[in-house]
Each structure stands twice: as C-alpha cells, then as structure tokens.
C-alpha cells in the first residue's frame, strides 16, 4: 500500500477526483443537497489544473454551459439531485441530439418534487432512461462504493467521449456522504479515452458524416473547422432534415445504433455466486451492497442465493438476466423505489422464473435482514 495514494474520502469527493483524473476541465453546477460537495471540490481544485468552474444561475444553465464547453473541446460535467436533474432534461436532449459528450451526476434523493434531500433513494432510474423527451438511447451507470464512484466516473467520461453522448451517473445520498478508504491509482496507469477529432480537410468536413465506425469525428470550436448543428433532427451536414422522412429515421437509428452495436463494450454487470443460485437478487447502487451481504448470510442458512448487480443500468444487462433466468427459480429485484428497474427485469425474465419485488421507499437503506426475510417469504412453496 502506497500511503501517499491512500485516502479516506466521500462518494461525492471520489466523483470529483475521478472526473479530474479523467481529464474533466469544465464544471458548471447549481447548489443542491446532497450533491453540493462535488461542486465544492471542483471549485477549489479545477483552477490548479487550468480548468474552469462556474456556478450557474440554475440547473438549466449548468447543463447548457457544460454542453457549450464540450463543443469547445472540454471534458465537462455537472452534478445535481432530483429537482435539478428534472431541470436539465431539455438540454440533456440537445446533447444527445447534437452528440456532445458530457457527464451528468444525479445524486438521488427521496420522493418526487423536493422529496427529502438528505436521505437515499433510487427514484430517478426511469428518469435517467426516459427523462428527456423523444426517442433516444441512454448510458447510465449506478455507483455503490466510493471506489466505484472514482473508477466509474472515469469510465463515464471514457464512454461519453468514445460514443459522443451524455453519460449519466446515478449516486445516492448514502454514498454521497459516506467515506471509504481508497487507493488512488497512479494517473499514468489509467485508461483515458478522448473523443475522435476531425482530421479531414475543413472544406470536406461534414459534422455528422459516419466514418464507418458509427461515431462521427468531432471538431472542437477554434480548431479550424466551421460547422453547424441544431437540436432539430439533422442530416450529416448538421442542418435540419425535417422534410426528408428517410433521413429523419436514419439519424434516430444512428443515435441508437452507436450504443446498441457496442453493447459488449458498454454493458457492465457483476455476478456473485450465481452459478448454483436458486434465488437471484437483482440490485444496483447502494442496495447492491445489502444484496451481496444477504447472499452470504443466506448461504450460511443453506439458501442458495446469488446476486446480479447491473453497473450500467442503461443499457440494461439483458444477457446476464437471460443467463440466470434459466437456472434460478426466483428472481427478486431489490430497489429503493416503488418499482422501476423491476419492470425491465420482468420484461427480460419473460416468465421463465418466478419474479418478485422488494421495494423500500422510506429514506433508509434496505437492510440485509429485510432482504433475507423477503427471500424466505417469496420462496415459500416455490420448487
């Protein structure tokens, strides 16, 4: 252990540190509990790296500012919680449509509207998928430990840059304020991906011309190119293609295809003791920790429990569920909400195993003993 690299830090600080390690040099945000500490860290530390921090007038402006900075070439980020995430949705759609990389952190709180700011929940899972209007894909990662907060923030930037898309990180109030020990890696050992930059003759440049990879090279403002874009559905020139039905469909397909054709690269899922499990717990974020602890205690009691932990919740790791649904008798989805990812799991299980749901929405992290009790309850009579 290199003592100089070991730190006891919160989930919020780990996100900020991970972002800076990934090369994030522009942050715009608006104060909101329980995400504000990410702003504090960036305000204090970005200038050291020549980066820029700004507290915008609201979350709408924050989202707009990080997109603008990214169009000028920055790796950029904002952080917020439910109410602010709602305000960001329209501009998030622009980033998807114009294919501008950026990272949005949503430290989830409890309940709709203001809800409860200081207690954990997983209430924004569907908002991360479908929050902005119109057909669009989503890359969303759920964080469950401080180490993951650091590592997955770096991964979020890599995915954003590689696929020219916003990436959403879902944390929660528990992880945001909790400290754990992590050993920060030597920055030289990190895999850092930067967006593909346009190299063609500026006269020939088309901002949305597929080079065969499905992902168009990017020309940051000030790099010698002149190009146009819009949130209106556009063709390869960046100009609206509203009068051509075929071109409209092609552009929407392209947004989906660049994600769907790369699922092997994007989808991340962890499995624990699934091989012989009769009961599979599906849990992500902080709740995954309760599920993992439950698997151990259940096995001590002779119940064969395994865990599937989606790390990318969007795109959803369908293959992992398809694999376990063949062997497991029961699949129990545990979430701190009224049932959100549950519906996706249910869709993928296709009735091939018993499916059950444990939802807790009281602002408390689900305890392993509650999951164990739920396992015992739902497995009665299942054989």
């Amino acid at each position, binding site marked *: 252990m290199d003592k100089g690299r070991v730190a006891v830090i919160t989930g919020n600080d780990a996100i900020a540190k991970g972002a800076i390690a990934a090369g994030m040099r522009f942050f715009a945000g608006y104060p909101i509990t329980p995400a504000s500490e990410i702003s504090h860290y960036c305000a204090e530390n970005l200038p050291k790296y020549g980066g*820029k921090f*700004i507290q915008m007038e609201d979350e709408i402006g*924050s989202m*707009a*500012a990080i997109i603008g900075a990214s169009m000028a070439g920055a790796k950029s980020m904002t952080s917020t919680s439910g109410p602010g995430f709602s305000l960001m949705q329209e501009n998030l759609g622009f980033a998807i449509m114009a294919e501008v990389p950026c990272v949005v952190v949503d430290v989830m709180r409890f309940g709709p509207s203001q809800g409860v700011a200081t207690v954990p929940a997983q209430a924004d899972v569907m908002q991360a998928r479908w929050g902005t209007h119109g057909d669009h894909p989503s890359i969303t990662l759920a964080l469950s430990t401080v180490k993951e907060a650091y590592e997955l923030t770096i991964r979020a930037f890599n995915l954003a840059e590689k696929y020219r898309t916003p990436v959403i990180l879902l944390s929660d109030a528990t992880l945001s304020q909790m400290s754990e020990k992590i050993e920060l890696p030597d920055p030289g050992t990190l895999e850092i991906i930067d967006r593909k930059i346009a190299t063609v003759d500026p006269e020939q440049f088309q901002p949305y011309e597929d080079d065969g990879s499905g992902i168009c090279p990017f020309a940051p403002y000030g790099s010698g190119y002149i190009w146009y*874009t819009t949130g209106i559905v556009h063709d390869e020139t960046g100009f609206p293609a509203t009068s051509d039905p075929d071109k409209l469909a092609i552009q929407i397909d392209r947004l989906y295809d660049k994600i769907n054709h790369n699922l092997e690269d994007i989808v991340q899922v962890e499995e624990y003791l699934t091989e012989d499990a009769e009961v599979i717990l599906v849990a992500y974020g902080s709740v995954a920790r309760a599920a993992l602890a439950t698997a151990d205690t259940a096995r001590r009691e002779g119940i064969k429990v395994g865990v599937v932990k989606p790390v990318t919740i969007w795109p959803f790791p369908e293959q992992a569920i398809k694999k376990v649904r063949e062997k497991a008798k029961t699949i129990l989805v545990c979430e701190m909400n009224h049932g959100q990812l549950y519906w996706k799991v249910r869709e993928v299980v296709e009735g091939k195993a018993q499916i059950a749901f444990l939802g807790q929405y009281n602002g408390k992290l689900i305890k392993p003993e509650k999951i164990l009790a739920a396992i015992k309850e739902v497995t009665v009579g299942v054989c």
Partner: protein
Amino acid sequence: MSANNGVIEKYLRTEKLPHIWCPGCGNGIVLNSLIRAIDNAGMEQEKTVVISGIGCSGRASGYLKFNAFQPVHGRVLAYATGIKLYKPELNVICIMGDGDCASIGGNHLIHAARRNIGVTAVVLNNNNYGMTGGQYSPTTPENAMTRTSPFGHIEPPFDICKLAETSGATYVARSHTYKPRILTKYFQKALAHNGFALVEAMCDCPTLYGRLNKRGTGKEMLIKQKERAVQLEKAKEMSTEELEDKFVVGEFVNKVKPEYTEQYDRIIEQVQMEGF
C-alpha cells in the same frame, strides 16, 4: 462579386437562401448589419461561434458561415457562457428574439450581464412571438393585440436595454431597421467591447404583430419606425405621454469593468503560482 463587397458570399451560406423570413420582416436587415460589422471587425470565422435561439430570429445562425448552432429555446446565453469561459479566445455572438432573450431566457440574460462575460448579445425585438403565430412577448406594449391578448394586452413590457443595464451589462445600445448603418456601428462597437455587450434592434413583424394591430404594410411600418425612434438626449426632455408608442435609441452604456473570463484566468494564474 457584387456591390456588397463580397460580404454576402463570405459570411452567408448562400445555398441556404432565400431565407424563410416574411416580406417586410426586419430580421434580414439586422443580419445584413451584423455581417458588415463582423467584416469591419475582421473576425476570423473559425474562431467565432454564433448561437441563436428558437423563433424567427433563431434561423439566423443557419445562414451564417461560422461555427453556429441552435440549441433549445431561451438558453443561448448559458451555452455561450460555457463556450466563452472554457475558450475565452473565441468570439461568441448570441442572436435572440425578444421572447427568447427576455422571457424564457430572462434569467440567463440578467446573470450573463451581471457577470460581465465577454459575449455579444444581439436582440431582434419585434414585440411578439412570430414563429409560433403572434402571441404576446415580454416586450409587447400594453393594450396591443396579439393572438393571446385578443382583448388588448394588460401586462407592461420590459425595456430590454434597461434590464441589461441594471443587471450589469457594460455595453448597451438600441437602434432599428430603418437605420441599418447605425445598427452596424453599434454591432461593431459591441463586438470590440471587452465585457457583456447587448444591442437591441427594433424590427417589425408585419405578418402578425403589424396585421393584428393594423400597422399597415411592411414598408409603412418601416417608415413609421423612423418616426417612433427618439434619440436618447431628446427622450430625456419628453414626458411619458409624449413617449407613448415611441422607443428610445442610442448608446445607453459603454464602460470598462473587469471581464469575467479574464478574472477567472487570474484566479488560475494565482492558484498555479502558489503551487499545490
């Protein structure tokens, strides 16, 4: 090259013309004045970003040969803030309508002005929402008829220049489409200004606002503009009643104050000098 000294071919995407604006609309005149100002200022096209909002004026960025984009309604100045702060060496020009700038984007306007960030705001004020069919905007005068004030408008209007001035803008001017050369002059000064600069161009919407308020043809409205415009100095001697249905033109603010991105760069310099 034609009598326009080549500015049309140099700065406009001629393949996108003719533009979509109605006969008699003032937007084309404003765009004309703006590209002449850009040409006079000698700005490099690849180092210049033009952002325009949603609405009739929002179409402007699509006709311009610059790095340009049209994001969602009302957020132009917030996008501009991100671009300018990250890369202060870029020239950032924001083209907005009265609704885009002072209604849905009003919050971004006052804060961009307050920060004195070095972007140029060009506001095309035609007193209503044209693209969506002639609804009242925050600059629609009292008693005016619009599709959403069919019994006469009961809200007082914003004075966008006063709003910008009060919020902290360091260059503020207003002219109108009858005086395209004056507009060019103000635009040029705004582009050269180091700080938040706003130029409001009064322009007409004969198709909707003009028709609903029986203002006559586009030509008649344009001629009327000349009569409605009152010089700043003269306006000071006039009563509120005398200023009814008039608008004040001139340079309202032109002062030097620290520019936002320069201040931030000084912080970076200071932090890096102290070491970490």
